[in-house]
């Protein structure tokens, strides 16, 4: 399978678009999703910042967001996208639905990791007079670090896959290229090239994530 110079150029451009969308959304997802996941844990009944009312509201919003299929979600948040980015079209605009969808996933994954910490460890910190902030930042997050790396890996891979739908609103990227050329114009070689590229990238992300998990696992 040989690609023409033009096809290679297209692949390059699409790869850069995907890289742009995924890297920015990953950063935003971690920055917002982890704190949201922390809230989902510490506001639980019996936890350090118990607040059952807020816990239920946040839980409901997260679940509602997660239950909307991504293509519909892109359309659904267009007004918000316009408000934030000024347009609902293009790679930057796609970052808004991508981030929102991935951040709720990240929040739930974070929640799961944090719930795995034995409650006794948190109580021990309380018994030593640690504040809630210290418990979150010096006990819960460090203890959950390997799981959090795993969660980020899952989020990145999900984002790569979601970003394939960016083409719907002119966001470009590898998925868009595969659909436009590989499907609509029957250029199967382009299709193959993007698929192979995606498989390799996802594999690399997974390997890198696994290495981080191993490096920080002390159990």
């Amino acid at each position: 399978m040989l690609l023409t110079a033009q096809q290679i150029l297209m692949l390059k451009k699409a790869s850069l678009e995907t890289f742009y969308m995924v890297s920015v959304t990953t950063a935003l997802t971690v920055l917002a999703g982890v704190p949201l996941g922390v809230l989902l844990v510490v506001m639980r009944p019996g936890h350090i910042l118990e607040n059952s009312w807020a816990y239920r509201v946040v839980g409901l919003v997260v679940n509602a967001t997660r239950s909307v299929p991504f293509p519909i979600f892109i359309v659904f948040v267009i007004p918000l996208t316009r408000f934030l980015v000024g347009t609902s079209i293009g790679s930057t605009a796609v970052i808004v639905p991508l981030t929102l969808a991935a951040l709720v996933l990240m929040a739930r994954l974070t929640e799961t990791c944090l719930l795995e910490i034995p409650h006794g460890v948190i109580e021990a910190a309380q018994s030593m007079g640690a504040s809630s902030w210290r418990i979150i930042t010096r006990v819960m997050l460090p203890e959950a670090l390997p799981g959090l790396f795993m969660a980020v890996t899952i989020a990145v891979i999900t984002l790569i896959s979601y970003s394939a739908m960016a083409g719907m609103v002119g966001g470009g990227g590898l998925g868009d290229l595969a659909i436009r050329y590989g499907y609509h114009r029957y250029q199967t070689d382009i299709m193959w090239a993007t698929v192979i590229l995606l498989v390799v990238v996802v594999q690399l992300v997974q390997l890198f994530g696994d290495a981080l998990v191993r490096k920080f696992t002390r159990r």
Partner: protein
Amino acid sequence: MAIIEIKGLRKSFGKGDKALEVLRGIDLSVGEGEVYGVVGLSGAGKSTLVRCINRLERPSSGQVFIDGKDVMSLSDRQLRDARRSMGMIFQSFNLLSSRTAAGNVAFPLEAAGVDKTLIPARVSELLELVGLSDKAASYPAQLSGGQKQRVGIARALANNPRILLCDEATSALDPQTTASILVLISDIQKRLGLTVVVISHEMQVIMEICDRVAVMERGEVVEEGSVVDVFSSPKHPVTRGFVELILKSGSRFLENGYAPRGRLLRVSLIGEGVQEPFAGELVRLFGLSPVILQAHVDHIKDTPFGTLVIDLLGDGGKAEEAIRWIREKGTAVEVLN
């Protein structure tokens, strides 16, 4: 003055019909420098009680005073300070798996805002105190149970607390390790003049290090007193159960079909009494023939404590006289048949 004073403490979990009353009016006081034991079967409410002391658990009603201050009246900040004056160790150690032994010991110092440059020296001092200097860089996963508990103890002592709370601190350890941890707690208690509260479902642990003991059953203290007194003359059935379990004797001789030929006695000798020629006196003074079925000497903390189970053969009247004589000496004796 009592350093810990608990008054009418009640605690229920759940609400309405499903409410479970776990503590039903506990009163007790622990003196400064005392090692106070709380023993009871699993589910008696011991952990809930000790957790009310540092307010990990909120009492439903009643009061807990530490140094005369009601812990319920403290602001969040004051509560954190109060907690720093009380170290706590746990059955499951509860160490941070992501930190080394030294890192774990540093945690409470960081939380107390100790100057960062002073922390390493204090950490090594504490690790040395618990005999773990060589394990400073090990992660909990690389330590044995006993070593983990030593880290737990070092961590609990980091901010120079006056009180150490131990919730089943040795229950996950084998007998040898248990003994070494108890010796360590006892040593440190003496050296630092700590007040220690020891929660355990094992009377053996209480015997080894406690001065006083409260026996709990279903959320109530059913018996309380010096360990020597409670142990030598247990009153409540639960207490008797614990004592029997250690002595593994007494009525079991009868249950197992032993047919006594005279009066079957269980005699508890405490302190100096252990050294007395007890059986010889029964022969010399009353002309009786004591058959020794079981003799057992143990220690309650530093007090020797002996138990004799004897079948007292000979004249019935003389035997009654001998029993009176034993009682008059102030020695606890129980007639088992």
